[in-house]
């Protein structure tokens, strides 16, 4: 049982060490890969809140990832073309400031999660999976058919957005931003999972009847968890867009939802560091297998099948034991 916290610390510091090594060796591409890991892990931390703690199998988290991305794309594109977003009833201008973009991304994805959650959580089980998947597809097609922001082609942002006091164009400084945010999100997740809310949410996953019998409504718990989950994944979307300086409807696609889920499962559902390990392994596989074969998704699929069929509990489960800690 003591192994998991050690493993977590090793993973978190390992990511930092990899970046510092890359900096020393002057390998900016590795820094970018590590930044991708941090951002995708953040998206996974968001999903892990709904999926791991709440047991809500959402196959539509690309919605929040995409909304975060488009929040960045829309605000920054208006800023770079000096055209206001809205002129009436109030004048709203675009912005290139990361903190503002993050706030907008989190608010928008949180609201979307509230709306989608309020509808989807009326059901459960397979219905919930299908409905979240369908809502993801709805946003995908909407992004494609809405011509104002690039439609199918997406939006390019020429210069990365700014953060006061930092040079975000320097890979290591941008990594630092993402790394700190990931750390904060993990800290939040660990607090949340030990809080009264986390206890009740976990209990509702295991036995909704029991939770209702003590006077707690599972629907409200789940809705709040789903919304918080959307907020975190939305923030990851905004950072991802800034990393690539590009947003496109692909961020909304069902593959994106599937991949975010794969990060969580590969690492270990409900484990604090599950998404971090999962995202790191995913990027590593992509890098290594992608170098070996153009068709590396076949191998990814095979790895995933093996993990699901034979290694329940994910990679952390394999290393640190299957039981999730409880005290």
């Amino acid at each position, binding site marked *: 049982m003591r192994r998991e916290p050690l493993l977590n610390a090793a993973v978190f510091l390992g990511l930092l060490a990899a970046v510092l090594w890359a900096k020393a060796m002057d390998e900016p591409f590795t820094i970018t890969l590590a930044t991708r890991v941090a951002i995708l892990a953040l998206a996974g931390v968001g999903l892990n809140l709904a999926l791991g703690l709440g047991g809500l199998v959402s196959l539509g988290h690309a919605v929040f990832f995409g909304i975060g991305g488009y929040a960045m794309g829309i605000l920054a594109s208006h800023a770079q073309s000096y055209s206001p977003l809205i002129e009436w009833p109030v004048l709203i201008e675009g912005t290139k400031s990361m903190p503002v973009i993050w706030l907008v991304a989190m608010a928008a994805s949180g609201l979307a999660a509230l709306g989608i959650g309020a509808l989807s959580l009326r059901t459960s089980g397979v219905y919930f999976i299908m409905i979240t998947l369908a809502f993801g597809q709805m946003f995908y097609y909407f992004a494609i058919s809405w011509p104002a922001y690039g439609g199918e082609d997406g939006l390019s942002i020429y210069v990365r957005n700014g953060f006061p006091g930092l040079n975000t164009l320097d890979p290591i400084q941008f990594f630092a931003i993402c790394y700190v945010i990931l750390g904060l999100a993990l800290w939040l997740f660990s607090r949340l999972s030990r809080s*009264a809310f986390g206890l009740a949410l976990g209990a509702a996953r295991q036995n909704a009847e029991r939770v209702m019998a003590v006077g707690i409504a599972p629907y409200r718990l789940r809705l709040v968890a789903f919304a918080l989950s959307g907020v975190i994944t939305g923030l990851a979307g905004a950072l991802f867009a800034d990393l690539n300086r590009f947003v496109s409807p692909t961020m909304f696609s069902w593959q994106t939802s599937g991949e975010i889920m794969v990060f969580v499962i590969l690492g270990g559902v409900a484990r604090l560091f599950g998404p971090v390990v999962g995202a790191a392994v995913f990027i590593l596989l992509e890098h290594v297998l992608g170098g070996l074969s153009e068709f590396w998704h076949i191998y990814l699929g095979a790895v995933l099948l093996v993990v699901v069929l034979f290694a329940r509990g994910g990679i952390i489960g394999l290393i640190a034991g299957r039981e999730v800690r409880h005290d």
Partner: protein
Amino acid sequence: MTSPLLDIRGISKSFGAITASEDVSLTLMRGEIHALIGPNGAGKSTLIKQIAGNLNPDSGSIWFDGRDVTALDTVARARAGLGRTFQISSLAMEMSVLQNAVLGALGKRRRVMRFFRDVMRDAALLDVAHAALAEVGLAEAAGTRVADLSHGQRRQLEVAVALTQSPKAFLMDEPMAGLGGEGTARLTPFLDGLRHRAPILLVEHDMDAVFALADRISVLVYGRIIATGTPDMIRQNPEVRAAYLGDEALT
């Protein structure tokens, strides 16, 4: 103090052609244990579900603590002060015994929407939880995972979780089920004392326990209450003997 705490007024429920509850009226007075007995298939589960709020009656009403709660769901009825134990243990299996007890304490105290503080360090909740576990004799097992508990311990935990809610009334569905002679012998005096904290509507198959504990007994047969009265009255009621007990005399 003469008005009943729980007042079930003529509820009926049918599923298609099957009448599960027919004009059932039942009261639970403060300080009493009111036992509900009946042969299998008499409609006890359906009745319990209507009282707890899982099912809505087709007609009639349910009053609790002076309020009409007929339209309220299980959550609202639990908040109103109805503490329920289930026939088949219904607990968060992956959590510890203490966590289950803390969960019960949470619901009552409306402390669910707290996101940062470690709930297992919340002294107020822990006090309630530990006290309840001690009362049912589970203090030693506080750190054990529920999945690793014995059947009897799970039954005890069911009661403990209900205690943490400090309910106004208990609704207990076969708390003795599967406890065995020793377990029943321990739970019986405990329930006996519990009635003074909050009255108990007790559905139970163990006749020894029922007749030892109950102030009043109601007999449900084919969805109808055919008799309500003191244990002595029920024992002597010819209709009960005929319909429910056959010729096996109650001793």
